[in-house]
């Protein structure tokens, strides 16, 4: 529909003090919000809870999510405003991906898929898939 589509990378940190259930809801809310604008979601890569390098709003841990999508640029300001308002989003960053970034992303994604497959093959429980 949109004439000028770009690929975007959105990373955000969710307050991990709230329950796992709430985190899950928030992540899916962000994802639906983006997809409802007509964007094509390429991937939602959840890193999970990690220790922050410095405290943000007195929190020491955060739940990291990286999502990748294709859409027109007009939704970005609205999206960022929504993220800004939500108190449970500690940080966010949207980047428009240029050709080099897309190439890099595709390579790293292939690597991740491979690793996930390798982890699946191993008898030990995979950590990436539980959530």
């Amino acid at each position, binding site marked *: 529909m949109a004439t000028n589509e770009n690929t975007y990378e959105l990373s955000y940190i969710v307050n991990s003090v709230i329950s796992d259930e709430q985190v899950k809801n928030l992540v899916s809310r962000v994802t639906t919000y983006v997809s409802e604008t007509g964007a094509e979601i390429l991937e939602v890569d959840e890193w999970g809870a990690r220790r922050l*390098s410095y405290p943000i709003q007195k929190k020491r841990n955060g739940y990291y999510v990286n999502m990748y999508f294709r859409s027109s640029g007009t939704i970005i300001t609205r999206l960022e405003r929504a993220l800004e308002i939500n108190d449970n989003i500690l940080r966010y960053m949207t980047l428009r991906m240029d050709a080099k970034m897309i190439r890099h992303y595709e390579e790293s994604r292939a690597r991740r898929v491979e690793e996930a497959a390798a982890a699946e093959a191993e008898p030990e429980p995979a950590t990436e898939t539980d959530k």
Partner: protein
Amino acid sequence: MNSPFREPEYVDYKDTELLKRYLNEQGKILPRRITNVSAKFQRQLTRAVKRARHMAMIPFVADSLK
């Protein structure tokens, strides 16, 4: 590091392992004088470090970066 280091075409801020190689113990970006990388790579590095700092992946100031 066993193979000669090739400068990647894009420096990902999420790759903190790579970024940390170019920071001193305080978390400051090392000058090109020390890192000996191309100007292009150093610029990309600087960008990526600043992005990573914003996302709390690496510290702005660290007393000890383990």
